[in-house]
């Protein structure tokens, strides 16, 4: 499973570059390298895009864009449709097609059976209005088989020329020369167990704790609060379990291969009232949350899943990591008692010892 001129696997070991991988692709490679494994996959890089677009296609596109009035919505829509038709109907060069097919096969070889994939655009930042725009338009889920994946890679490339993107560039004087697009191809998560983890105690902001919520199936029911998950608090330094509440976990969302949709089903009684994570899985979740906090240098709120298609030890996936916002502006600074601590004794001052000793600790 090796990288080549056009393909870079998330765990391929190369330094991620924004120019080559786009924002999303670079971030997935970075996270994987930092011990925060995202669902496995690869990036079809911007060199692949250029190889595809070269040999005259860009000239044909430019003709459609010349003299286009950004206020003439109809004209923009027509130009957009024509360009996208050009892109999606044009055959991919054989060399590029060959390495993409090989990358697809390499990725699938990691799973017990052929798994559905997602294809997402990964723009280099300046070419598109904003990340959410790109994200909304260009994420294709539950793709089965190589032809569907190949088709949607081209759809991502074509998404550079949506009407909105065209208007945005004209209005902001962004030239079309050098426009680039990388495409992420990634396994769809098949969550057996999933949930969230915060690198603090959300009740008091204590940063020496990691709080994990976990339930069966896909994590959406945990996030939306429609299921009572297992709730476990660990010490961040030693990962010792401090509190452990087993949630009812009455239902789970799981992918339905027939429809490529998530379906909700009832959890059978014997799985409800037991922890859905083993202690080693729990420790792995906590370690990953810790790494995310260290990587992003602030308390994190992560979403994670254990993927049923991946072997133990490689099945914990990070789906999202974002800064925790409620408490992270405060530190875990104690309410310090009175007294000069820089004592002439060279130790903690005697008066603070008295205060501590006579206080009733529970």
């Amino acid at each position, binding site marked *: 499973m090796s990288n080549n001129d056009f393909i870079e696997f998330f765990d391929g070991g190369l330094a991620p570059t924004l120019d080559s991988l786009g924002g999303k692709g670079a971030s997935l490679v970075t996270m994987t390298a930092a011990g925060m494994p995202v669902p496995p996959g690869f990036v079809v890089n911007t060199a692949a895009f250029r190889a595809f677009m070269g040999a005259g296609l860009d000239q044909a596109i430019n003709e459609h864009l010349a003299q286009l009035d950004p206020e003439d919505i109809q004209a923009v829509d027509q130009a957009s449709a024509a360009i996208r038709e050009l892109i999606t109907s044009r055959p991919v060069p054989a060399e590029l097609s060959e390495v993409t097919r090989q990358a697809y096969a390499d990725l699938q070889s990691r799973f017990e059976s052929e798994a559905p994939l997602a294809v997402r655009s990964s723009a280099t930042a300046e070419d598109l209005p904003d990340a959410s725009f790109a994200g909304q338009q260009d994420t294709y889920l539950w793709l089965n088989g190589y032809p569907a994946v190949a088709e949607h890679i081209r759809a991502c490339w074509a998404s550079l020329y949506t009407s909105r993107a065209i208007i945005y560039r004209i209005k902001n004087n962004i030239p079309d020369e050098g426009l680039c697009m990388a495409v992420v191809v990634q396994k769809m998560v098949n969550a057996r167990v999933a949930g969230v983890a915060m690198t603090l105690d959300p009740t008091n902001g*204590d940063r020496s704790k990691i709080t994990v919520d976990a339930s069966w199936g896909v994590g959406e029911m945990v996030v939306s609060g429609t299921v009572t998950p297992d709730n476990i608090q660990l010490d961040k330094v030693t990962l010792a379990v*401090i509190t452990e509440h087993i949630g009812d976990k009455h239902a789970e969302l799981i992918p339905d291969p027939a429809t490529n949709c998530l379906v909700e089903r009832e959890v059978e009684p014997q799985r409800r009232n037991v922890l859905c994570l083993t202690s080693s899985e729990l420790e792995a979740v906590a370690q990953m949350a810790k790494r995310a906090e260290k990587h992003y240098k602030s308390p994190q709120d992560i979403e994670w899943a254990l993927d049923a298609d991946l072997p133990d030890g490689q099945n914990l996936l990070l789906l999202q990591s974002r800064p925790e916002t409620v408490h992270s502006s405060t530190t875990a*600074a104690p309410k*310090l008692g009175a007294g000069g601590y820089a004592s002439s004794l060279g*130790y903690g001052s005697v008066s603070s010892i008295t205060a501590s000793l006579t206080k009733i600790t529970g």
Partner: protein
Amino acid sequence: MTMKSFPKPSDLPVPAGAEGWEEIYPYYLVFQDELKEEEDAKFWFCDSSHWPTVFKPFETIGGEFAVKCLGQYNARHLLIPNANGIEFRVHLGYLYMSPIPVPEDQIAARVPEFEARIGHYFGDWENKLAAWHDKVKGTIADMEQISFDPLPEIVPFEDITNGVGKDGSEILLDNYDRLISLTYQNWQYHFEFLNLGYIAYLDFFNFCKEVFPNIPDLSIATMVQGVDMELFRPDDELKSLALLAVELDLVQHFSRTDDPAATLAAIAAAPGGERWIKQWEEAHEPWFNFTIGNGFYAHDKYWNEHPEIPLGFIADYVSRVQDGAQILRPTQKLIAEKQRIVEEYTELLDDEAAAIFEAKRSLAATAYPYVENHNFYIEHWTMGVFWRKVRELSTMLTEAGVFQDPEDLLYLGRNEVRDVLFDLVTNFGVGAGTPIAAVALPKKIAKRRLIVDALKTARPAPALNTPPEVITEPFTRMLWGITTEQVQSWLGNDEDAEENVLKGMAASPGLVEGHARVVMHADDLSSVQAGEILVAPITAPSWGPIFGKIKATVTDIGGMMSHAAIVCREYDLPAVTGTGSASTTIKTGDLLRVDGTKGTVQILSNMELVSGPGAHSHAHQH
């Protein structure tokens, strides 16, 4: 929820045959009818961690000296603002304790004295501790000088000419008094630093709980605990001797260590044996002044008097080295892990708090190791010499016709023994011959033997009377693990209690399953098989070699800083301490799951019939 109570002392049944047991102990050690109301109003917990076995009358000396001297440092030396000493009683042969609080309105007045006194020590810990070592070793040297020689048949002529004017009996009396008073002296010294070690630890402990709410006690302990401690030296000496035996190819001579004379002779005669014997002899002083017991009982066996014990441990290590095992403690790993833990907690604090954290931690890390290391100097070394001298005395008295058996002495209190000595010197001095004791005592001693044996048939109650709603006294919580939760769990008020699950302190992390080996007494240690889970009322750190081959430890009593907890962390083994009843609930052979991270012990299946080589299914009757 209504508070349940433990039985009153008078509610506990007297085991058949133990009637009249009160008479075998000094009056001040037993509950008094005249004080019943007052004594029943107090909460007493049993310290079966230090005194798991019924006291023979002479043996109360260790309990009396230890608990009295502990208390005097709280109440009279350091003036701990909120804690006086601990009252204690012997009931049905076991020691029960009741901490004495300081009245709320007197706490503030003690603070200035307290601060001045602890400041004196904490400001110059290393020098003060060095002076302590000198004092304690001086006491031991004085004790070693004591001998109990037979009285001279006639006063030597030179005593006549020198005008000595005494018959030598005064030396016997004086030596006995000196033995008692020197032992008392080291017990006083014992607590000069012990309470301070706990104070520094508690200070850091409370600070950690404040800045990191619910931080596991284990994390706090790890951050202050010494990694290379004197208490581990005796065990390290044995490991070193085992490695040397392998290196020198002396392995074949360790097959019959129950015959130490033959074993040592064979080693000495073998090539390279001389070097090994030299190291073996050098290790003796002081490190073989070490007992497999805890120093509080006359039956505790010391390595230097029972070479078959260290030789057996060495043989055990030798065979493990040959099996490719790593017998040395993972010291480097423990140091690195301790450092990581300290750093990661420190990083969570802002600069000001981090500075306080480090000040308190370093004080605790400086003062706390004493809490473990003193154990070698007092419980092992001092008490080893003490019991050896007591045996010399009882042997001499037996030869003088006072006792029929040297063990008889143990059935008299130490002040009754003083009477016996005067009986001896009187009858000897006047030329009457045999002391009255020879006829007056045998019946009494025989009766007391029966009473002690009868008392041994019952285990102590974990506690007596009604517990306070919350247990706040810091030393009780820390030394004995007597917390509100623990007391509730003993009372069966634990709402989360599961069947077949015992709860205790999460004293050393890890999760293992294995078969139980219940050890009620140090003499049963040899029954422990590799891979078993040790279940005991208490463990002594001197059981070191056993920790190298067991999977986990479960005890009845003991907190986060009990010996079992510390040794298990040192050996990287799970431990659950302070379960209250593991040694009586669990049977040898039961399959257990010990979770030292959560503090639970689950009995997965009851005792299977164990058979085959190495299996021991006998009951433990000690």
